[in-house]
């Protein structure tokens, strides 16, 4: 009797278990349907982004770390140097392999590519390589090493061979280090680049500094504007926002050129100042840092005002009123109650302005001087003038890394989900 009861209890519990398992399965099934539907909705954009954005940019950036030229053009010497310890000069076989490789490359017409790549690392390498090609003895009775050192004593230096080995691929940190004014010496340890070749740390620092200053100026100018607009009745606020957005209706290039017209030595402003007797000689307002700040702030200000406005709009006036009724003077109420509530807007505005400023190219190129060019200028320079895609890619990686790092810091401090873009 009792045993029968226990058995039926077991059966009941088992069926409860089974029911629970069935319920979980049903839940999973219904969730999966929802997930599939969501995935189907984002798929078109995902494919578009992958095809037009992720793949090409990824391919471009990969050139900053891939180094295949030497392994392809000078395969024999690259293979020999892989097992070279780097402490003494490489073995005779390396010299022989180099001579064979150069002969083959001359016939194939690819020696110039290899020369260009090695010349990035060691200036003068092009000459070195081509002189071997020209002065190579037809038949090698003596040792290959003596023949090469006879052509140029540099073949007797470890540094020359270390450069070939460094370029042996398949991946390299040469460009990335170069973007930070670093290089590897003959012993493969990282050292600073020679003083006269150091530029990129300055450029990176300058890029960050200009972006930070532009962001700060935008914040100082944009905050009161957003405050005023947010306090207006909806109709007038719409009109004022339209005015703030007006610059977007003109092309960036036109706006920048307009600043050239305004700020140049014989420009509108200088003529005005001179005729008013404010200055005795024209002010230098163009092709310097001042012009870069003015033009960039003008372009980027709406990106600061919009998120600020959006956040301020959502703050009911009762907060400041409450602070005031509790005894806070106007500035205290503003500083301790209002401003903290606009922090998500400040964060979003600063992030948008700063990240966009980091990548600015046309504006500093047109209105700035030589010392006001930002990192994008050098990316463009390497990509289109010297066709050193490795260096262009490495600088791009630096820019992208700086942007992502900032984003991460912002996310940590404010939280991206609290960002309000307008």
């Amino acid at each position, binding site marked *: 009797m009792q045993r029968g009861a226990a058995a039926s209890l077991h059966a009941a519990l088992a069926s409860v278990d089974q029911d629970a398992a069935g319920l979980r399965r049903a839940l999973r099934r219904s969730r999966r349907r929802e997930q599939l539907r969501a995935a189907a909705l984002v798929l078109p954009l995902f494919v578009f982004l992958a095809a037009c954005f992720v793949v090409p940019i990824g391919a471009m950036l990969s050139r900053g770390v891939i180094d295949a030229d030497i392994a392809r053009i000078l395969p024999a010497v690259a293979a020999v140097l892989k097992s070279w310890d780097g402490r003494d000069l490489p073995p005779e076989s390396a010299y022989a392999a180099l001579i064979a490789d150069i002969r083959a490359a001359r016939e194939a017409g690819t020696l110039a590519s290899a020369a260009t790549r090695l010349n990035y690392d060691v200036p003068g390498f092009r000459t070195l390589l081509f002189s071997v090609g020209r002065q190579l003895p037809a038949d090698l009775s003596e040792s290959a090493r003596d023949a090469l050192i006879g052509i140029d004593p540099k073949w007797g230096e470890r540094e020359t061979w270390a450069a070939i080995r460094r370029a042996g691929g398949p991946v390299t940190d040469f460009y990335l280090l170069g973007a930070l004014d670093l290089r590897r010496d003959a012993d493969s340890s990282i050292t600073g680049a020679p003083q006269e070749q150091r530029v990129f740390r300055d450029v990176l620092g300058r890029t960050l500094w200009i972006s930070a200053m532009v962001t700060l100026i935008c914040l100082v100018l944009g905050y009161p504007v957003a405050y005023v607009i947010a306090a207006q009745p909806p109709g007038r606020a719409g009109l004022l926002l339209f005015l703030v957005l007006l610059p977007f209706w003109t092309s960036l290039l036109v706006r920048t050129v307009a600043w050239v017209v305004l700020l140049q030595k014989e420009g509108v402003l200088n003529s005005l100042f001179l005729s008013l007797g404010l200055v005795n000689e024209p002010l230098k307002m163009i092709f310097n840092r001042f012009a870069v700040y003015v033009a960039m702030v003008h372009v980027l200000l709406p990106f600061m005002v919009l998120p600020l406005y959006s956040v301020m709009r959502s703050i009911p006036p009762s907060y400041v009123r409450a602070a005031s*009724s509790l005894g*806070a003077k106007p500035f205290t109420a503003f500083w301790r109650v209002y401003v*903290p*509530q606009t922090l998500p807007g400040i964060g979003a505005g600063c992030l948008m302005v700063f990240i966009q400023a980091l990548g600015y190219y046309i504006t500093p190129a047109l209105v700035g001087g030589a010392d006001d060019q930002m990192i994008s200028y050098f990316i463009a320079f390497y990509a289109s003038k010297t066709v050193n895609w490795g260096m262009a890619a490495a600088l791009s990686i630096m820019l992208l890394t700086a942007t992502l790092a900032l984003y991460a810091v912002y996310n940590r401090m404010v939280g991206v989900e609290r960002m309000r873009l307008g």
Partner: protein
Amino acid sequence: MSSPEPIVRFVGIGKTYDGVARIVDNLDLDIMRGEFLTLLGPSGSGKTTTLMLLAGFETPTAGEILLEGKPLSRVPPYQRNIGMVFQNYALFPHMTIAENIGFPLSVRGVPAAEIAKRVERALDMVQLGGFGKRRPGQLSGGQQQRIAVARALVFEPKLILMDEPLGALDKQLREQMQLEIRRLHQRLGVTMAYVTHDQAEALTMSDRIAVFHRGRIEQLDTPERMYEYPTNAFVARFIGENNRLDGHLETAANGRCAIRVAATDTLIDGTLVETVGIGDAVSVSLRPERVQIRAAGHTIDAQPGCRLAGSLREIIYLGDHVRARVALTGNEEFMVKRPISEAHTLPHIGAAVEVFWTPEHCRAFAQEH
């Protein structure tokens, strides 16, 4: 309870935003020290504006407000030392509960140790001790409301203003908070001015009620007098339930009067509340709970001028009382409210009935325009 000395005096206060519509119209009002005064009225009646004028967030376009005898017109809100509780609580979301309550003390330069002590005391007062470290978003509506009250009280202002502070709460919580705020008021003896559009709330909480309508005070009285003796048709309609009959004044003497009900051409007796000329349009107000009902033909103990015939249309059972809807000529929706003990004596639906009352509960006013 309240000493007769006024703490706040509104003298001829006017407020207009556009120079045409008078939001507050030549208002005279005294708030007595220690009293709980409710400003009651429909939306747009000027009650909230009156409160904002007192808090200093609006400036009057005419008249002067005196706080303890001193004119307030040149005193900014932060120097008025008036505590205020807002409709949406207005707790600062970026501060903890303790920082919120400590805010009025910290802007007054009270030392930190003293602030901590007083914040704790204020939290205990609203029965939320131990909540100091949380943020407003982590609290329920009722808890946020209590914190807002604690914050308005912590700097010991002489006057607390509340602008529909319970509007966002559900009914049960609202009724509980009404009693809590009332008890706080009785315990602390602080003067409170309270704005609401909910007449039940006003009746529950107040020492006195000021009924606002179109920027004016229609009546200023204790809850009991406001309910039992409304002095005009608006207040009679606005406070409590009310059966209305329209007619003309036939005779009037010694406060009593006879009204010819327009729809039936019968005369009924009533109490004349306002000064009205003979023949003028009046409306008669009868509270549902002051009216009795019997099947037609029964002997009833009422004078001829205090009864009307109709038919019983509907009986609504409400647990603690019963409501009967009677169709009279001139008012199809005449309501009678009887205690539950009389439920079984009610006639059947459809029966011919008579409703009757005593003349003092039949109040006649000049008709509203």
